[in-house]
């Protein structure tokens, strides 16, 4: 079973996404903050990370850079989800593997998750 890590500061989204993805047959872990994100990734060992860009307290792109710089974590696909379509460039620059603008369609989410966890 593929493992999905979702980090979002909005509890409602976090919960909805967890339910939806679980129903698709994934093991879902969620965190409401981005603190110690590397530890969290190391602990969960996800096949894919869904990350909200603007986590309270920390800049999402900095987080991405940190994660991608960490040994052994550079191969973990990180999907950036944001309510700011304009953040797409910045996100791609920081090294994320895909960008999803809120609000997104569930089918689209499933498609992306499926694609990056296929290998």
């Amino acid at each position: 079973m593929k493992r999905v890590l979702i980090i979002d500061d909005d509890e409602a989204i976090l919960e909805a996404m967890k339910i939806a993805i679980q129903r698709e047959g994934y093991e879902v872990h969620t965190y409401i903050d981005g603190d110690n994100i590397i530890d969290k990734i190391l602990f969960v060992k996800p096949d894919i990370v869904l990350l909200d860009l603007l986590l309270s307290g920390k800049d999402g792109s900095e987080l991405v850079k940190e994660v991608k710089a960490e040994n052994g974590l550079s191969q973990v696909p990180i999907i950036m989800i944001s309510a700011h379509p304009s953040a797409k460039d910045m996100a791609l620059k920081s090294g994320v593997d895909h960008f999803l603008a809120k609000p997104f369609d569930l089918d689209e989410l499933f498609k992306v998750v499926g694609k990056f966890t296929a290998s």
Partner: protein
Amino acid sequence: MCKFISAVDQTEDAVFITDINGTIEYVNPAFIKMTGYRASKAIGQTPSIIKSGEHDSRFYEKLWSRILSGKSFRKVLVNKSKNGKHFFVDHTITPIKNSSGEITNFVGIWKDITKRKEAENEEKENLIRYTNLFTQSPLSIQIFSPDGVSIKANKAWEKLWGIKYSELDGYNILKDKQLKEIGIMSYIQSAFKGKACEVPVIKFEPAKSKFGKANGYKWIKAFIYPIKDRFNKISEVVLIYRDATGEVEAEKKLETSQKQQDAILQSVSDGILVQNAKGELVYVNDAAAKLYGFSSAKKMLFLGGKDLSKILSKCGLRNESGEKLKFDLLPAGEVLKGKNIAESTITYLDKDTKETRWSLLKASPIYTDKGTIEYAVNVISDTTAQKRFEASLKFAAEASKVISSSLDRESILQQLTDLAVLEFADWCAVDIVEDGKITLKALANKDVKKIKLARNIRLFYRPDLYDRCGIGKVIATGKIKHYRNFELKKLEKIESKKLRSMLKRIGFTSIIIVPVIIKRKVIGSITFATERYKHKFSKHDLQIAQQLALQLAASLENAQLYEDVNNEKKRLDNLVSNVPGVVWETYPSPDKGEQKISFVNSYVEKLLGYSTKKWLGTNFWINIVHPEDRERVVREVSEIFKIGKGVIRFRWIAKDKKVLSVEAQSQVIVDGSGKPLGMRWVATDITEREEMERRKDEFVNIVSHELRTPLTSLNIYSKILQDTLNPEEKEKSNIYFENMIKQVKRLNKLVKQILNVSSVSTGSIKLNSNYFSLDKLIRNNIDGNKRLNDRKIVMKGKTSKKVWGDKDYVCQVVDNLLENAVKYSPRSSEIVVKLRSGADSAVVSVKDHGFGIAKQYHKTVFERFGRVYDQVDRTYPGLGMGLYISREIIKKHGGNMWLKSESGKGSTFYFSIPYNKIN
């Protein structure tokens, strides 16, 4: 015997006695006296001693034979005295016989008739002389019998009339009707009555009298006298006359020419006055007489006599400076003193019109043959009109000086009135209408002391627009008023006693009130007046007054215009300097080299901290544009210049290094023919506005994010909910879920649009461009969009090249256009999408058959939140952002978006996308 001898001795006749042989025996004393021979010498001689030799021998033979026959011999003899002198004697020789009858002696008696003979000879000579005189006289002489019949005429007569005397058949002067008609018969008759007389010169036409064939006419000057015999009885009447035609006609001519000359001299307007060498008046014409105060030349000659100085002292002529003229100082006086020509100007008061008049007096001498001055001729020409003209010219010149020297209304008025009283009038006042009231604005008088009096008068006399006369009436009607003879009687109507007495004290003679009219509106009046004893305003003066009024009107209009312009300028300056923006002008136009700022308002100091001086003379405004904006600004300036006007936004760096955002509107300055000269700019500080906009966008951004997150979860939950339902329940409630999801999607889309608007308006759209096929994109869009499936959409044409752009954004634009077409046109109608290739770009059009868009909305449909209204002003649903976003997207691609539409006839929206990337 003794007695006898004594008698013989005493007789005056010479007596001598001889014997029969003729030897003298006795002589008496008379003989001695007559012959000069003494008795002793004569006795013993024969009478042959006194032979004169005048008589021949036959005479003596006859004598002797007669006396020897005893008869007496009597004959006139011419003898010769002892001293050789001839003398006539009546000679009688008588023989003396003795008683036997024999002749013994002869007695000779000589009567001395020498004196008688001499008298007889003289008479003869006289007759010859007179006959010659008669026949050869150059004068015509005609002799008449006492009953008037012509007896004789001389050659001169024949010559005069051109006929022979013989042709004059029985002419009787006393019966000549012509002479009677002429009226000289009485003269003729008196001659026939014995009185010599001179006949007046007559014009005689022989044809009218019985004068034979003679014709023509002659002027005749005649003398007629009677000739009487020794009994004092008239024997003949002599008429002597001469032809006076030439002289009469010359005289007539002379007379005529003199008359003409006189007529000319009388009729010329110039006065002519002739003085003799003594300075006495010898000729004057009417004009000159009038000048000197006489009604005619005759009266002047009659009343003034010859003494000119006396006349002069009475008539009040003055020189130009107003001094009384003395005779000696007149030009004629100088001429008589030997000057060739002299002249001077004189002034006098016309007694009829009471006007001051001017004359130029010019004198020139007339010389005799000997070169001495005989006369001085004065020509006096009236130069009043010229003087007045000069005065009016001077006045006009001064007036225009005043006008041009000042644009201050009050000072113009005062200066003009001051001028008017110098040359033209005694009084001048200007009244101007202010707020419907007539107000005295300027007043002048020759006599400064009187101004106070006049101002006092105006305290009592306040002209009103409802007045029936005077200033009020003139201003109300705009018609000039000329009181040539101002009657003091009129003043009686004035109620105020004080005013009446003040006006009487001034005693106006003549008044002119002229309206001052600007643009057909009476704005006031000028009043001119003359005082007691001064001249009355003539028509000429009226013209000058009108001219002045015109000039005043012009100057006031100028002043008004100047004031208006000044006020306007002040207002504009004020406005411009108070505009919360920088206003500046640059010259020349950008295509004519480097521009320089020629004007900038003072706000620039407030906004940017730079002084206006810093701006002028350079193109400073460009220098302080933010370096990032500068290149674009320079490009946009030249674009604006091409179009004529435009708006650009850029950042300025103030003196304190603060960055200011400004929006600058520009207008090209053109000359009369539309040629560009420069540019005018108005820049307003939009830093705050931009900040506000930014904050608003940020707000929208945040709000929409806040909306998106719950929407995302709502979306997910509704889907999950739908999935988790069992099939039975699902069937029942599926339609509700569908609706719910549809509404969530719609909410999603709205939020997306709001976000698009904010990103478009902040310019934060980032294109992810590639070359792609527009045809394919549109085909996919039509096919893939389920919502459009039930509508007939026709795709026509194609593009030949791929375009450069962001597929997602372009897709959004196509989506928007198709959605609009569906939304705003009837279900049954088709929608036509057309593609074609332009030169640099591909063009897509979407045509619907909807209600169309009225022209007035063609611009607003592309504006942010622009709405389209149909005929009944119903708005159509939607936020009105789609077209705005679409156009901004297309613009970002370097393309364009426009529409063609008419109300009720459907709409066609176009957009173009360049094939290649636009810098």
